[in-house]
Structure formats: structure tokens, C-alpha cells
């Protein structure tokens, strides 16, 4: 008998249909991966099982967990199941823990809610649970607070809370999306080990085909609230039926066509750049310490080239990006764009700044919601000495919007009227409008669904061909860097540990760290 059986589940929130006719099941010891893009209803399916739905949600159909019909249970009965029979792990470890209670206390709480045991006994079992998730007490005492732990360690605490009572089902909602690739690999391994040890069933929700395909016994593919395809993994990948699944898989491995015309002249030259930050004083009147985020980095980016910069969070890549953009002054070294320094004296050099633009990760946060698209797109004009006005300005806006695949009429709209992918197009249009030579793409496609990501990558390749643009592509996502860059740099702890032609770095990595990164990145099964 199945541990979890969802049959013909419909879910509405208010009048909006969220799920339609969703059926899936999880057996004890089985890992079922649910894949879909944002808005596909995959998370809502998980929250229906937990019955932690937003207000106004109405579910029909049946959800049976270990013999209990979830949809008919009362709230106290559900409370008795949550955390006891079914545990849940969430996407964002940085905010999933209560910041003002110690980790031991929070793990012990799961036990105290469901069993009549003493506080000491609960803490003892919390200690065991934390040890099982590889947070041994000698290095991670129970009295630690969440802010003293890294993202990966916090996720382990969340997992410890979820498995403390050895539930029969574990639901993991994008458990590694917010983590670095090596941390992701460790957390996935941990989850798999716990599932196998306890014979738990696991419902693993992800947008990332590769993550799920490494782990799952069965795959369910969802789209706009419906299950389009399900089957055993990895067999399913060689026999995909539904056109959506096929296009999803294709998009995951999509490599844009690029005609590379790299000139030999360096466009951007970074030499021996150092950037350090002051750390808080240790004593009241002591000298503040210094943390060196970038330790003497040098590289060239040639005209027309697409250069990748890969590294995990905290490696200094964002600091380096800000330095290149002239947003912060560096303590040592020099950054030249087309032969001129980005910083002259103590202020950024406008003549140089107008030759480069940046596209950031978050398509939602990087626009002022109260401005119309035409005004947003024109923002970089402040870098020009004589910004175009009237007709010339209109023409520039239209040109920028049409070159990223939007229409001239979109200029009158506000940013909330666009989807994530369209917003990223607008961000690119904003970068293009002053005809820069270099565009920095700081995790520019990381927040996008795979199909949208594929389209944006195609667009970037087109634009590069059309305008002779150079890109500095900063990302933690190795698969994207691999398909869009000619050369790549691998950065670790403020230093570049390896650089070379992208294909060479990926197929024959020299530095142990590069090897570790590439090994940690989840792979898609080879297509038959």
C-alpha cells in the first residue's frame, strides 16, 4: 500500500484554480521527484499534503497519508500528524529557522510537541538528530543560534527538525535551490542517506531536472497545475511522451548558437586587484580587523569575448563585479576598460562607465515599480553628456525594446505587467540603450525557469553577434556558464584558481577545487 496517495486533487484559492486532477503516490522508501516551473503547482501540492495552505484554499479529491484521509481531518488531528508522521524541509534555510531560539531548542521542540517526555530527554534526542545530519555536538553545540551557522548548516538543522521523530514521509520543497553547488551535493546526499536508513518516503520538489534525476526513483512532471507525465527514473527520460516534458528537457541542456568573433585586443583588463573590508573591532578601542575579499585578481577580457566567472557564495565574485563597475574603490591594482581606468582619483570615471552596463539576478527587485518602462529603460542616459531627447529618445527606447524581443508599445506599461523573463528582457534593454561594449551579467538567468532561461541565453547570443558585445558572465551555475562562455575563470576565496577555454576547464579541470565543483554539479541523464 502506498504511504502517500494523492488522487484527483483539485485545488482552488479563492476563485483561482491552482491544481487540476493531480494524482501521484509515494511508497515507503521511495523518492518521488516533482518537477515543474514556477506556478506549476508543485509547491501547492506539497502544502496540500501538509494542509498548510493559504487562506481561502479549497481542496477536493483525496489525499491519503498512512491511512489518514488528510482532507477530512480536523486541525488538531492534522497538528498531531505534522512533524510526527510527515516532516517538511523548505527552500530558504536562511529564514526557515527562528532567529532568536537556539538550534537545540528548536529541534527539541518537534519532540516535545508530539511526545510526553522531559525537556532533558527531548534535548538528548535533539542531540542525536543533529548528529544524524552531521552537526556533531562538539563542533555545533545545541546552544548555537541560527545566525552562527552557514546556509548549508541551517538547512541541516531544518532537516534535523523534520526527521527527529523519524516520520514516514519527508517533503522537501526545493531544499537545495538556495545553496551552492558543493553544499547542494552534500545536502542531497544527506537526504538520500536518511531516506534509505529510515525507509522514509520522500516527495522531492524541484525546478531542476538534474537535481531530481540524480536522486529520484520516480518522476512527476507538472505544468500549470496538472501532471503532464510520470514514470520511473531514469527510464522516463528516454521515453518522454508529452511535448512539454520533451521541451523542458531540451531547454535544460540548451546551448545557444554563437558565432564567436573574438578580437585580440583586450577590452577589460583587471590587474592585481585587491579589495578588503573592515571587520568589527574585537575590543572597544581595538583596531578593526580586515577581511580581504579579493586577493590580487588579474585577467583580461577580449573584445567580443564571453567570459565566465564561476565561484560559490562568499568567494569574492560580487565584490569583484562591483569593483569593475566602479561602484566601489579598490585598495590595490588597476581596472582598465578599453585602456582607461574605471576609477580616476576617488570617483568613478563616467567616460568608462558608459561603456559597460550590468544585468542583475532579481528581475523583480531591480526596477522601480512606480516608473513606466520607457523611464526605466532610459536610466543609463544619465551617464551621457548629452542625453537624447524628444524623437531621438523615443527612437532609442523603441530600438532597445524591439532588440530584446518586446514591442514599442510596451514602453507605456509598468513593470508589474511583465513576467520574470520579460522583466529580464527589459533589464537587458536598459543595459543596451547606451550601446555599451561590455555587459556584466551577474547571475542574470539564475532566477528564471529553464525554458525562459534558454530563451534569454539565445537572446544574449544574438545580441552579441548583432552588436559585437562582450559579456562577463558571473554565475554559480556551471551548466549555464558552460554553454554561453568562451573562456572561464574559477574563483575561490578571493583568488582565481583556474582559467582557460571553457570546454577545456570543464572537460579537463586542473585545480582540485574546479574538479570538486564539477563533480558536485548534478548531471542530467544522457538522452537515448
Amino acid at each position: 500500500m502506498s504511504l502517500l496517495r494523492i488522487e484527483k486533487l483539485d485545488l482552488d484559492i479563492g476563485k483561482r484554480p491552482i491544481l487540476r486532477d493531480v494524482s501521484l503516490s509515494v511508497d515507503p522508501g521511495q523518492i518521488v521527484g516533482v518537477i515543474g516551473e514556477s506556478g506549476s503547482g508543485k509547491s501547492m501540492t506539497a502544502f496540500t499534503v501538509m494542509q498548510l495552505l493559504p487562506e481561502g484554499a479549497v481542496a477536493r479529491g483525496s489525499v491519503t497519508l498512512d491511512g489518514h484521509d488528510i482532507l477530512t481531518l480536523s486541525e488538531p488531528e492534522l497538528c498531531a500528524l505534522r512533524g510526527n508522521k510527515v516532516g517538511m524541509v523548505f527552500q530558504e534555510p536562511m529564514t526557515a529557522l527562528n532567529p532568536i531560539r537556539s538550534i537545540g531548542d528548536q529541534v527539541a521542540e518537534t519532540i516535545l510537541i508530539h511526545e510526553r517526555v522531559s525537556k532533558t530527554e527531548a534535548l538528548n534526542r535533539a542531540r542525536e538528530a543533529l548528529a544524524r545530519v552531521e552537526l556533531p555536538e562538539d563542533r555545533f553545540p545545541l546552544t548555537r543560534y541560527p545566525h552562527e551557522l552557514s546556509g548549508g548548516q541551517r538547512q541541516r538543522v531544518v532537516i534535523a527538525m523534520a526527521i527527529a521523530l523519524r516520520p514516514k514521509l519527508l517533503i522537501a520543497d526545493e531544499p537545495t535551490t538556495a545553496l551552492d553547488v558543493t553544499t547542494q551535493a552534500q545536502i542531497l546526499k544527506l537526504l538520500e542517506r536518511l531516506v534509505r536508513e529510515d525507509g522514509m518516503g520522500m516527495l522531492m520538489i524541484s525546478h531542476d531536472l538534474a537535481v531530481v534525476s540524480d536522486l529520484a526513483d520516480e518522476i512527476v512532471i507538472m505544468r500549470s497545475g496538472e501532471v503532464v507525465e510520470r514514470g520511473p527514473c531514469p527510464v522516463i527520460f528516454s521515453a518522454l511522451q508529452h511535448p512539454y516534458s520533451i521541451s523542458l528537457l531540451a531547454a535544460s541542456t540548451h546551448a545557444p548558437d554563437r558565432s564567436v568573433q573574438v578580437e585580440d585586443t583586450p577590452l577589460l583588463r583587471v590587474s592585481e586587484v585587491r579589495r578588503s573590508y573592515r571587520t568589527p573591532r574585537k575590543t572597544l578601542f581595538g583596531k578593526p580587523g580586515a577581511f580581504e575579499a579579493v586577493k590580487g585578481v588579474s585577467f583580461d577580457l577580449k573584445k567580443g569575448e564571453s567570459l565566465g566567472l564561476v565561484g560559490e557564495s562568499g568567494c569574492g565574485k560580487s565584490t569583484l563585479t562591483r569593483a569593475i563597475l566602479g561602484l566601489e574603490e579598490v585598495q590595490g591594482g588597476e581596472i582598465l576598460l578599453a585602456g582607461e581606468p574605471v576609477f580616476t582619483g576617488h570617483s568613478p570615471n563616467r567616460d568608462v562607465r558608459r561603456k559597460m552596463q550590468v544585468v542583475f539576478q532579481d528581475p523583480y527587485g531591480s526596477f522601480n515599480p512606480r516608473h513606466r518602462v520607457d523611464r526605466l529603460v532610459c536610466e543609463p542616459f544619465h551617464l551621457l553628456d548629452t542625453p537624447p531627447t524628444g524623437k531621438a529618445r523615443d527612437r532609442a527606447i523603441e530600438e532597445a525594446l524591439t532588440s530584446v524581443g518586446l514591442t514599442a508599445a510596451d514602453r507605456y506599461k509598468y513593470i508589474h505587467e511583465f513576467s520574470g523573463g520579460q522583466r529580464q528582457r527589459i533589464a537587458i534593454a536598459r543595459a543596451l540603450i547606451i550601446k555599451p561594449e561590455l555587459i556584466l551579467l551577474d547571475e542574470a538567468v539564475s532566477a528564471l525557469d529553464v525554458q525562459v532561461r534558454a530563451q534569454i541565453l539565445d537572446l544574449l547570443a544574438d545580441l552579441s553577434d548583432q552588436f559585437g558585445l562582450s559579456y562577463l558572465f558571473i554565475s554559480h551555475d556551471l551548466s549555464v556558464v558552460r554553454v554561453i562562455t568562451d573562456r572561464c575563470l574559477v574563483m575561490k576565496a578571493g583568488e582565481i584558481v583556474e582559467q582557460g577555454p571553457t570546454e577545456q576547464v570543464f572537460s579537463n579541470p586542473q585545480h582540485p577545487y574546479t574538479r570538486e565543483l564539477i563533480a558536485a554539479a548534478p548531471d542530467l541523464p544522457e538522452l537515448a
Partner: protein
Amino acid sequence: MLRYTLTRLLSLAVSLAVASVVIFMAVEILPGDPATLMLGVNAQEDTLAALREQLGLNGSLWSRYLSWVGGMLTGDFGTSYTYRTPVAEMVGERLWISLPLAIYALTLSTLIAFPAGIWAASKRGSAADVGVMGVTQLGVAIPNFWFAMLMVVVFAINLRWFSAGGFPGWDKGFWLSMKSLTLPAIALALPQASILARVMRSSLLDTLSEDFVRTARAKGLSKRQALWRHALRNALIPVLTIIGLQFSFLLAGGIIIENVFYLPGLGRMIFQAVSARDLIVVESVVMLLVFAVIAVNFLVEISYALVDPRLRHGR
């Protein structure tokens, strides 16, 4: 935690020093001569000079500042120009009314605001929430002196439960004194409680939508338990800030209510001292109030650290 406390103490000392200079300079540049005021415009020049000498108005700016600060540090606040009594004594008497009144009002306000705010937040969108929001809106809008007069009419004149004003003195008995402070305290507490309840509600609602509350629910806590065990303490920081601000306001800003109820408090004293150009009283009382405000802020900051371990660890 020790380092945090020491840093805060240092900043407290610096703020006090800066405040003393500002207050001293502000009073210095006020027009009007206290000696002329005390002796009348017809006083003879040599009498005036003698009085100025006696009041210490002739020394250099620097020496007068130092003797003022030095005096305060040793508990000597100087002598009032108008009443010829030590300022410390006058302030002490008044403080024994204003301080209990402020504490009384703040206690009432907190006792009303916490349950009301928590209740409204836990039943968001319900009739209870709408009711609490409506009543607190009214509480913020009603001028407290008008409400005070209304209470005098109802409870003192018609029902005769309370006296309409005045203060018997603590030596006449604790309960009698508290009784005479009750109506003023309610009048002061009403707008404060309304603001505090609204802050409590919105802060709690923000916290309730945080990820860690969802995590707590996924562990098997009911909505109610998640609110009490996880959301409430996290929601306290903005509420503590408001409480600190309110206390300072209640201590110094009760002047209108003190007038309505004929209470000889600090607010009334400073008002009278300003009109009588009794500079030494003004300086000392303002300095005392600044000290109270800064000390309360210090306590609020210490309580932040007690609530939030991230501050305790010096981040």
C-alpha cells in the same frame, strides 16, 4: 553582551555631555536678564550687580558651564531665582508625581495594548480585528485633554467616584494618591495604548508571515502555539522601541493633563519656570528629562539584546 552593554553606556555618556552643552547654550542665548526679572525694572544698578554676582551670572561662559555641570554631578542643582529654594528639592517633589504618573500610564497602556494587538493579529480580518482597529483609530484621534475633561464630568462630577483634580500627597496614603492619579493616567494611556496596540498588531502580522512560523507549523504546532512560542518574541523589537519613546513623552509631556487635573508635576513646573525666566530651573529640569530619555533608551537597547541573540553576540 558585556561589550554591547559597555558600548551603549559609552554612547549614553557622550549623548549626555552633548545634551548638556546644547541646553546650556540654548538657555544662554535666551533674551532677558534674570536679575532684572527678580528685582523688577526699577531696581538700582548696584543692587542688580550685587544680585548678578550672588547668582554667579558674571563668570565666563566656560566657568559657569563647568560649575553648573559640576553641581549637577554632586546633586546640587542650584537655587531657583524666583522661589529661592534649592532646585533639587523642587524637582524631587514634582518628580514624585510625574514619575509615578508616567509609570502608571505606561503600565495601563501596555496592559491594554498587548492583549488587544495580539488578539487582533491572531484573528486577522475578523470582526474582532476590525473592532480593535476601529477603536484604536478613535483612541489616536481623540485629543487626550478633551477625553480627560469628559472623564472628569462623568466620574468626578456625576458619579463622584474620583476627585476632579489635585493631589493629596504620598504621606496621605498610597491608595488615596494612586486614586487621584487614576483619571490622569487613563487619559494619558488612551492614545498611547491605541498606538501601541496598532504597532503590536502590525509587527505581529509581519512576523506571522515569516518563513520560520511556517516551519513551526510544519513541526505540528497549532496556529496559536506558533504565535505565542515563535512569533511574539520576534515581534517585540518595534514594540519596545515605541514603549521607550512613549515613556519619555509621558514623563515630560504630561503638561496638558497635569493642568486639567491640577497636578503639581514636572510639566507644569517647567512651564512656570520658562514664563518666570527662572533659567536655573529650566536648565536643570530639561537636563533631567534628557537624562531620563537617554536612560530609557539605554534600557530599551539592553532589552533588545535580551530579546535577540544576534545583538547579544555583538553584531
